[in-house]
């Protein structure tokens, strides 16, 4: 019998896939701009229909990711404020010890793996990396997208600095996904929870032993508040979030449309009469 343990609801899964698709599109359309000399860049940009289209796709994907961020602020806010589930995701010293424990276990110094809760230290680290990375990319992306608005407040140097950070953070993010995410979720064992929403008992035993033990003893890592309390907080949270979401959506709209950075026509660099015979001209010898 294969028991399954619910992990991600439909909303979480949609969020994840919207984010992963936009992330992948951003990574591809961004890295080709970082390395325009590469042979692979040629193939990709050509396939996408040129650099201007590539940039347009990058911007559309950025907007999609920002919408996912605003949605996530809602779901995360609901979990933290209304359901008080913060304990599940906040990193703690226990996670640091779990990481050290895991090293010891893999080196053969400890007989048992660390017993982890709903989110492992590896998952919490990845979540924090995504939060940090998205914030850096959004801020530096805004600066490059709106350099005139940025330099109205900040020194001009912030634009190339933003570009350096955007490119560096992109490499960091892509490598982290390849090394950390792909290994932990797909190679170590194929985790299907983002497809079907749940994980197997075997996976629970191996990765979330503490959570499993709590479930079996009828407890919860972060117990849900009583329904009446949930209802009360919901009534406060929903309008606040609606307001925040409207402000943030307005922010995204500004992000996308704030300035017309450059004219789209070409100003002739020189105004000169092209045909102007020399004052003393002899047309034939």
């Amino acid at each position, binding site marked *: 019998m294969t028991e399954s343990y619910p992990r991600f609801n439909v909303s979480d899964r949609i969020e994840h896939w919207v984010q992963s698709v936009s992330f992948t599109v951003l990574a591809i359309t961004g890295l080709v701009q970082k390395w*325009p000399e590469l042979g692979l860049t040629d193939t990709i940009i050509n396939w996408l229909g040129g650099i201007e289209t590539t940039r347009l796709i990058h911007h559309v994907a950025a907007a999609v990711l920002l919408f996912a961020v605003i949605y996530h602020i809602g779901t995360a806010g609901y979990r933290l404020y209304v359901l008080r589930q913060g304990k599940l995701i906040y990193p703690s010293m226990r996670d640091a010890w779990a990481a050290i424990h895991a090293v010891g276990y*893999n080196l053969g110094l400890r007989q048992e793996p660390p017993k982890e809760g709903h989110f492992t230290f590896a998952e919490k680290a990845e979540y924090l990396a995504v939060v940090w990375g998205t914030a850096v990319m959004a801020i530096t992306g805004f600066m490059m997208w709106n350099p005139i608005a940025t330099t109205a407040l900040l*020194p001009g140097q912030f634009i190339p600095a933003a570009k350096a950070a955007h490119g560096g953070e992109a490499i960091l993010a892509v490598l982290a996904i390849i090394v950390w995410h792909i290994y932990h979720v797909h190679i170590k064992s194929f985790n299907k929870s983002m497809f079907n929403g749940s994980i197997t008992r075997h996976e629970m035993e191996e990765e979330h032993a503490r959570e499993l033990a709590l479930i079996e003893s009828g407890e919860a890592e972060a117990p849900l508040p009583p329904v009446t309390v949930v209802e009360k907080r919901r009534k406060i949270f929903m309008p606040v979030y609606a307001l925040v979401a409207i402000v943030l959506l307005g922010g995204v709209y500004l992000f996308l449309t704030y300035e017309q950075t450059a004219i789209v026509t070409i*100003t002739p660099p020189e105004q000169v009469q092209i045909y102007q015979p020399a004052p003393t001209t002899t047309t034939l010898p």
Partner: protein
Amino acid sequence: MSHIIIGGEQFGERMNRRVGLIVGLLVIGGVVAASGAAPGSASQVDQSAQLAAAVQAAVSTGTMVHADVISTDNKTCFACHKGTGLTYEFPSGESVPATIDEDKWLASEHGHQDMACVQCHTGISRYPHEATATDLRSFVVNESKVCVECHEEQATMVADSVHAKARAEGNQNAATCSDCHDPHYAVNPPVSRTEVPATCRECHSAIYDLYEQSVHGEALTTGNPDVPTCTDCHGVHEIQGPDNSPFRLFSPEICASCHADKELMAKYDISTSVFNTYVSDFHGTTVLLFEKFAPDQQTDKPVCIDCHGVHDIIPPNDPRSTVFEGNLLATCQRCHPDAETNFPAAWLGHYEPDPHKWPLVFYVALFYKILIPTVIGVMLLFVLLDVFGRIRRRRQHD
């Protein structure tokens, strides 16, 4: 009807010796043609004597002899055309000097090659010469059509030029072969590099005036061959202009052909990283990608000349330069009309980010140079340890 004008007076008004000579030539031409002798044959040895006789005959009888074919012998032509003060008048009223300096002709490349006048002046078969054109300009254009007979390679290149394009669009002023290459006196190589601007100036004097004041033009006119002359950027026969997308798009490569040349730039203490720093920036990256994928399309991103100026380009430390620090904002505003004071510093001015000039950019880049290997290194370490642990435990289990 066109007329040969001699000494400023119309033919027939004064029957001088020279005219008699021409009539004589025509007689000879007729005789040669009628007898079927090959043009330019050995009979020319006796030409002078025959000529004199024919002239006498013509003058005494007062007849005008029209020949069907004029001899292809250059002497025949020179008999008249080395005479000083000859001019030719077109029906339009324009006139052109028709005197050819025989010594200079013989010293020219065409003279060296024993070219016959009528090889190029094909429309002439009698005297008075047929009117091959109604005006001077169409005469020049028509006569140049014959150059392709010998100079096919150059003519093919010219066919792709901005001049050929302009003429195809009906612009008769567009330069043709003989506008640049004097067909009678040109030597080989036809035009030296330092002479090129003077040649182009014939039609592009306003551009020449700008070029003459530029850092390049100033150096060239004082005899420095290191600097670009017109043809170095625009090409020689397949001359390209700014209305041509690939020309504008690829122009940074033209600049780079000198400005990325370490040896050449060292002589003038000019940085050779200008091209690389341009390409690594947003503008240059875009232009590079357009070059690759859409060479026939324009991009609104600037190339070198958009900021530095075109023909009047001057060093960036010259206060008149468009890229002089105090003028940068105005230059940026040409494409970024809303740009404010801080905006120009968003462009690193062709400098690699260094801790003194651009500390923020330098340290952000440095931060990621450290952060990326550290984070990814730690991740790899954990992953490899996990792989190692799993293999070890499996072995123990077995």
